[in-house]
């Protein structure tokens, strides 16, 4: 904590209140993770009777053993990776050039195109027309449909466009004087200088794709193509409906609750591992030293 000797009494009080609030917020954010992890490692009986609070009760890996042997789990896991990686790459391929074009003053009709992009944030056709559109394009039940169908996000375009606009014009001009064409200006100057913004939209894309549930459920009928989130829902439904499973003593080692919690833990781990990997790009001052303002 910073030296508080120079703070007034009121300021000290304010700082302490803030620290308490931040602490509470951190706990509130962290607790669901701890709880789910604890449930996934508890016995089915313990989880069902609601005695798990912070740490596993009657600790067991039974729930994990149950899901890890299910080939559908691994298949949906693989599908989620395909949708996440493919969808994120597709998004970046479309969003970056779009944002760059919209950020350039020389784009003819720039205001109009910007308005058109922003328009899609407020208004869209709705679920049924979108489904019909995907059907007519032959994109139902297809990996490519999920990857391309949600690749363009107006919010990400505007976010990146604003970042591009904040890059001093002289970088572009210097590159053009050095002989770069528009693509080279984007690829060799703007993209390297925009790593924090691109990392941000990459994170948005990855998280949105990884957690993608609703449209995958609507557009995918083939169980071999469903992602992890849809598999999770299917498992919850199946285990809840299986009265025999719920009532047998065999199930005391694991239950619907512990299996669901185990699937959630398995689905969270890759995202948790991904964030530290891109965190280094969230560094300020990437433009430092390039221009003298």
């Amino acid at each position, binding site marked *: 904590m910073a030296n508080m000797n120079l703070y007034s009494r009121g300021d000290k009080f304010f700082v302490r209140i803030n620290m308490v609030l931040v602490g509470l917020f951190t706990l509130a954010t962290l607790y669901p993770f701890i709880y789910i992890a604890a449930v996934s490692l508890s016995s089915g009986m313990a989880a069902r009777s609601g005695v798990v609070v912070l740490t596993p009760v009657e600790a067991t890996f039974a729930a994990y053993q149950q899901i890890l042997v299910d080939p559908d789990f691994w298949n949906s896991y693989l599908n989620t990776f395909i949708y996440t990686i493919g969808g994120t790459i597709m998004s970046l391929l479309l969003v970056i050039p779009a944002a760059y074009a919209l950020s350039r003053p020389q784009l003819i009709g720039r205001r109009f195109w910007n308005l058109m992009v922003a328009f899609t944030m407020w208004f869209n056709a709705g679920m049924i027309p979108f489904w019909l559109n995907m059907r007519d394009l032959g994109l139902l039940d297809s990996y490519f449909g999920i990857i391309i169908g949600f690749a363009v996000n107006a919010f990400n375009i505007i976010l990146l466009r604003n970042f591009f606009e904040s890059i*001093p014009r*002289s*970088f572009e*001009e*210097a*590159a*053009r*004087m*050095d*002989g*770069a*064409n528009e693509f*080279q200006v984007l690829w*060799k*100057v703007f993209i*390297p*200088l925009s790593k924090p913004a691109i990392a941000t939209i990459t994170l948005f894309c990855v998280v949105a794709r990884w957690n993608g549930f609703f449209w995958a459920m609507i557009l995918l009928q083939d169980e071999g193509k469903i992602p992890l989130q849809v598999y999770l829902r299917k498992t919850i439904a199946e285990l809840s409906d299986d009265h025999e499973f719920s009532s047998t003593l065999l199930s005391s080692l694991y239950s619907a609750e512990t299996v669901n919690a185990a699937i959630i833990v398995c689905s969270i781990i890759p995202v948790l591992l991904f964030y530290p990997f891109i965190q280094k790009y969230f560094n300020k*001052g*990437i*433009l*430092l*030293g*390039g*221009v*003298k*303002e």
Partner: protein
Amino acid sequence: MSGVTLEKIVKSYGKIEVVHGIDLVVAEKEFVVLVGPSGCGKSTTLRMVAGLEEISAGRITIDDRVVNEVAPKDRDVAMVFQNYALYPHLNVKENIAFGLRIRKESKANIEKQVAEVAEILGLTEYLERRPADLSGGQRQRVAMGRAIVRHPKVFLFDEPLSNLDAKLRTQMRAEIKRLHKRLGVTSIYVTHDQVEAMTLADRIVVMCDGRIEQVGTPMDLFNHPKNLFVASFIGSPPMNQIQAEVEASGDKLFAKFGAHRLELPMLHELGANDHGRKVTLGIRPEHIMTQADPDTDAIEVELDLIETLGSEALLHTTVMGKPFVVKTETRGDLSHLENVRALHFKPDMLKVFDGVNGDVFDHPERLK
């Protein structure tokens, strides 16, 4: 010939015209400085030569080729920007090599040329550093290296030293001058600093409100300004001005201001008919003599302030209610300056300008 010619160049933004049909010929290997106050159109003119701004009318020729519709990268010009515009994600070597890489030069050639340029600019030991790890002067040298390495036909400098501190500016100014001597590349340099203009230029172009006021060698502009604007812009401190009235007496002309009467030199376009005409007298601070005891011709003054510059000092006073500055030698002692009570200047050092439009009344032999 790798010269640059501007013919009737106009630049408009919508209905607002900011450059009003300027003409300029920059000869091969010449170092021309565009100077003028902020907003006078000098940077816009430079950017039009670079191809970063389209021209609204007129014709730009580089090396006998009209480049009105040629992209910047195909004009064979290099530019040094005011804010350096170094690529912060690349190190010094990569920054200098950027243009060569874009042009797909061979790796060996790039290495060789970068090494040469780094040697010239004293950057060899900094090649692996990023711009953020360099001082202001080193960054500006990298920016120049990026321009030099391509061996362009024309160098364009857009106020390259304005972000440096005074000492570094003086040092870099000398380096640019030396570099121009060594490379002999046609250069156009924009600055608002008339000291930079005077020290660097083969010829200076003084601009004001999108027009060229005067083109000439530094000494030409200093000694023979065409109008009051050029006179007051060139020279540091600027030329002093006194509002006066012409008085014809016999075959002589006098300038009358307050209780004073100064005999005017013989000037073309100014004669006995101009009795009563309003004029502005211009006198450079270094052309004024000081006196401790006023004689009959002297102008009595009271000193407001003495600014010491070491071997020289600036005496601040007031004449006819307007600030008046005298530059004089200190001779290592200020005591004799504190006693200054009067000023005296020779009529042949006076410049006389029209009181309405500011045009100079020059000696007949100076006018073409």
